[in-house]
């Protein structure tokens, strides 16, 4: 298992480098110019100096290397400095945004908590709903509950978040006025009142995201349970007189959870990607919304870094899913 993990880790490095190269080369073609906003009265040679200062004058491969070094070495050093008060990264050039001339990671660090709150809560809520629903509709296959559940999950994953979001805004924010339609990020939670406010403003985005994740997960859970319910060991467990509850909730559930856990791990990066749209609908200023504004403002370092962060998440969670599968299922041995 350990050798497999190490081998997978080693394979992740060229994958990440290749993805970084793809993203870098794609953006290399971009028509945007960071000097476009500089007034025309600034002489050409000054503009050239500014370009050099932004690190644009050098050949492609050097800039790619510098970006990789900045991403994998200088930025982590900065995080280290920030945590322990050291000064290892002093004077080293960080990845600078063209929009606000500040290091991109500072902006990203400001935005990540909102995304994590909304995405994380909805993922937890979705898992808590999806697993019982999946178990029950598999156990009572073709019952009314199962039929209704299948229909609702089909709707849940057919309705795109930009429509379900708009729909819940119409119903709960415009008609009923129960929840605000816009996420207020300036809200500081320091009392029960503001905590209630925070819960209320998170309710709609979490609901939209959770609906989507629940539908996918509970379909998967149901299929996985159905695969296991007809196995021989279930008959054996019943034959030796175990209670039905023990058979389903211990024997079958534990075996059915194996693929579901890996799907949960694999889904995390997709949720971050999907949250881009939900964040846009509810005006949550998380990293998804940051990406959209950066694309609109032609802020290439920001776009590059954010896209790459999404790629890192995907590779990382693929790795976690593979390793988890190996640990949970002794029948799987990668050798």
């Amino acid at each position: 298992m350990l050798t497999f993990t190490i081998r997978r880790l080693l394979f992740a490095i060229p994958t990440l480098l290749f993805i970084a190269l793809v993203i870098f080369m794609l953006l290399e073609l971009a028509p945007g110019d960071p000097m476009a906003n500089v007034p025309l009265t600034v002489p050409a040679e000054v503009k050239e100096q500014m370009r050099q200062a932004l690190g644009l004058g050098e050949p492609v491969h050097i800039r790619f290397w510098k970006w990789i070094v900045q991403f994998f070495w200088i930025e982590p050093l900065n995080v280290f400095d920030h945590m322990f008060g050291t000064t290892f990264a002093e004077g080293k050039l960080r990845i600078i945004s063209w929009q606000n001339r500040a290091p991109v990671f500072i902006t990203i660090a400001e935005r990540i908590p909102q995304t994590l709150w909304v995405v994380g809560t909805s993922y937890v809520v979705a898992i808590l709903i999806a697993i019982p629903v999946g178990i029950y509709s598999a156990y009572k296959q073709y019952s009314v509950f199962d039929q209704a559940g299948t229909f609702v999950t089909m709707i849940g994953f057919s309705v795109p978040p930009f429509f379900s979001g708009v729909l819940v805004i119409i119903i709960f924010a415009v008609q009923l006025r129960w929840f605000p339609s816009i996420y207020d990020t300036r809200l500081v939670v320091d009392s029960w009142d503001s905590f209630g406010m925070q819960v209320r403003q998170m309710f709609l985005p979490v609901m939209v995201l959770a609906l989507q994740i629940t539908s996918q997960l509970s379909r998967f859970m149901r299929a996985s349970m159905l695969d296991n319910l007809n196995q021989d060991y279930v008959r054996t467990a019943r034959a030796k007189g175990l209670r039905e509850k023990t058979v389903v909730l211990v024997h079958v559930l534990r075996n059915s959870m194996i693929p579901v856990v890996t799907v949960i791990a694999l889904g995390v990066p997709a949720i971050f990607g999907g949250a881009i749209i939900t964040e846009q609908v509810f005006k949550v200023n998380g990293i998804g919304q940051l990406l959209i504004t950066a694309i609109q403002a032609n802020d290439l370092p920001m776009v590059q870094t954010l896209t790459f962060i999404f790629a890192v998440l995907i590779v990382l969670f693929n790795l976690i899913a593979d390793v988890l599968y190996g640990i949970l299922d002794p029948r799987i041995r990668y050798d």
Partner: protein
Amino acid sequence: MTDARDPLTPVGNDIGVVAASAAVAGAEPLLITAARSQWWDVWDQFRTHKGAMVGAAIFLAILALVVIGPLFVDMEAGIKSDMRARNEPMSLEYPLGTDRLGRDMFARMIAGGRVSLAVGLTAMALSLVLGTLIGVLAGYFKGLDGPLMRLTDLFLALPLLPLLLVMVLLFREPLTAAFGIEVGIFILIVSAIGITSWMQTARIVRGDVLALKEREFVLAARSIGTPSRRIVTRHILPNVLSPIMVSATLGIATAIITESALSFLGLGFPPDFPTWGRLLNDGVPFLELYPGRAFWPGLAISLVVLSINYVGDGLRDALDPRIRGR
């Protein structure tokens, strides 16, 4: 001889006799099953899936409305603004009301549907061709398997939505300059979606091809000297048709959602050019006053995707003999 009901009629070399016996074949159950192709079985099975039939009916109805709608609806009313008829509610003249420039929403919905469905179908076709090609090549030729599957893995590890957004940002101007704004963006969006969605098809097709390649009929074909190209087109491709059809239906659904998502984020078609995603996006600022303007395009997208997903479910049940009849 002409008495076809005579059970002793010899079915021999005489062509006339064969034709005559075939003509009355309708009466004999044994001959019926021989004449049926497997697609009739699939259809019979598909018909028993209620959700799939309803889905197919809804999808065909929307498709028909969008294709022949312009014959009955004045499409000009969806383009020209009419300031005297701004923000009209639903009425007989304007079935879905008018927008803030007095344009007929129903005509705009039909125009938007044409674009959205066209994008969905074309992008699906592109991703199917790419996926099948890569899947067959990787499955059939051992030397290509490793590199092509690594490529697929790499594509699966790419963050697709951000990359799609970046691609649209980058190639919008060169392509609109080359082909004009509408065709340019259409090509851009279709190829962007196609290039980023072929991986699942490729994986499924490769798996099936790997299994098929070892079967006796392929061995037999090879033993009589059939070239690889013809083995693939004659023996392999028809047998991987069913997984391809299932992923085709799901492909249309994802392509429509992706296009609408891009338009919704303001990075799809230009503002004056209606697609369902664009109309939804245009309707969002007026949500409090005129919720219908965002509701109808969203409902159209969701209905199409839902019905296609049901069709895909039914097709999968019908095409997979192992779960058939359950």
